């Protein structure tokens, strides 16, 4: 594998940024650009993610979400551009991407040195899969496989967890459970999280901060101060409307007809 030109850092030194006072951000990207042929995918992009911050990245297809995530993951080289990420980082992809010829715990332990069964078991216990440790990936349901993929990321104790639409191919009920799981894991381990998604509601209900990627740049940013767990209420809806507006979807009209009924049914979350 070619070494990525990405700068990695193990002991953060203070840098002036959007991060909380005194702590360096987990991720720092300055004036990042990336083009494929004539198409500019990312254009002078700036991004800071604080230590332990949960950031969701929204954008239409082709907006460069995945390109940005791949760069932060080190799967695409950043060249000599100004990109700083932690050394300990892990990706959960949209598909589980478990190696079908390794049982679950060996998948979780993939690439880790030494006797790692107990570490894999601990991670699998956290995602509620310790009873399937010796199973083949082909026997797992979609939700179980994605939980195994989460365990595989967790076991590396990442300071940056990159989630590339990890819930997109799950059914609605499983997705809700996965949201809860990801939040509890995030609370327990406090990695910085970058969640790439196209689901506005998912972004609002999980993240501290939602970014909208548009034409290769961060076009909008919403800080979500609603207490978790977040229910769809007026505050939620206002944020959703703004974010959809940034994404070029005019929902004011459609929402207006439903809003009265919904706010009557769902408790106002404040």
């Amino acid at each position, binding site marked *: 594998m070619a070494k990525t030109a990405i700068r990695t850092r193990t002991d953060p030194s203070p840098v002036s940024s959007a991060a909380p006072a005194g702590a360096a951000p987990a991720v720092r990207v300055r004036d990042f650009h990336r083009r494929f042929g004539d198409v500019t995918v990312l254009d002078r992009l700036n991004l800071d993610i604080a230590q332990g911050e949960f950031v969701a990245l929204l954008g239409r297809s082709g907006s460069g979400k995945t390109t940005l995530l791949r760069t932060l993951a080190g799967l695409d080289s950043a060249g000599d551009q100004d990109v700083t990420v932690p050394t300990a980082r892990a990706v959960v992809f949209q598909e589980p*991407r478990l*190696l079908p010829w390794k049982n679950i715990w060996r998948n979780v332990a993939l690439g880790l040195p030494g006797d790692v069964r107990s570490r894999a078991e601990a991670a699998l216990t956290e995602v509620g899969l310790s009873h399937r440790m010796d199973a083949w990936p082909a026997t797992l349901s979609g939700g179980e496989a994605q939980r195994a993929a989460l365990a595989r990321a967790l076991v590396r104790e990442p300071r940056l967890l990159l989630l590339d639409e990890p819930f997109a191919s799950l059914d609605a009920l499983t997705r809700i459970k996965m949201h809860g799981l990801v939040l509890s894991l995030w609370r327990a381990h406090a990695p910085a999280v970058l969640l790439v998604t196209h689901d506005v509601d998912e972004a609002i209900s999980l993240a501290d901060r939602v970014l909208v990627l548009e034409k290769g740049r961060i076009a909008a940013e919403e800080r979500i101060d609603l207490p978790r767990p977040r229910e769809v209420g007026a505050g939620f809806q206002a944020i959703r409307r703004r974010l959809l507006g940034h994404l070029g979807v005019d929902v004011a009209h459609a929402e207006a007809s439903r809003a009265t009924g919904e706010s009557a049914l769902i408790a106002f979350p404040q």
Partner: protein
Amino acid sequence: MSLADTVRFPATFTGVRWAGLGRRWVSPILLLVLWEIGARTGLIPSRVLAAPSAVAATFWGMLVSGELPTNLAVSFVRVAIGLLAGVAVGSGLALTAGLSRLGEDAVDPLVQMLRTLPVLALSPLFIVWFGIDETPKLTLIAFAVVFPVYLNLFNGIRAVDPRLIEAARSFGLSGWSLIREVVLPGALPSFLLGLRFALAVAILVLVVAEQINAQAGLGYLINNARDFMRTDIIVVCLIIYALLGLGADSLVRAVERRALAWRPSFLRT
């Protein structure tokens, strides 16, 4: 752990399929009976085709006298050596071509060109080069085996899901560990398929190769029997060839069931 058991030992082909098997034996047995009747009534002269009972008796005689086991062993060793050499060369070439673009450019055109040669047409050339003892027989088998192994393994290596490779890379695998943990296991099903083709080809070429001035082996037995119009011996040898092919195939299947236990087709949960 009870869960591991249910996953690893599926109830594959029990029960249901045995019930239908009895019926499937009716027509072959009927054919044998007709053949025997034809031979006994003189409808089928023994120099055209020996009766099944005569074949069975000859088989037993050859078995007891040790004539069959010794010659079979000679043939078996020929296939084994030729196969081993061919698989080694084919795998080596496939790995070279599969794992690097440079290797592909160097190896693939060459193999693709040689592949078009009908192997058996090479036997005169091999006799000129290697004489008439064991060497041309073994090289013919090995040569024929190279191609199915190469084609399938090369294809298998290139067909490994790039998303799995990417995921493994993101978890810190690279170089040899990536090949060992991801590429080779991913290509294993294709390799085993190639091996099955290779076994079939090896036995096919064995038949012809053994006609080259053999002093022992199944081909030698057949050649001798032909000279004396002993159709019973010829039939015995044909059956042995068939069994050899069948045995080889089920051997690879057994290996597949073990090595590819993770595949959905072997999993019944």
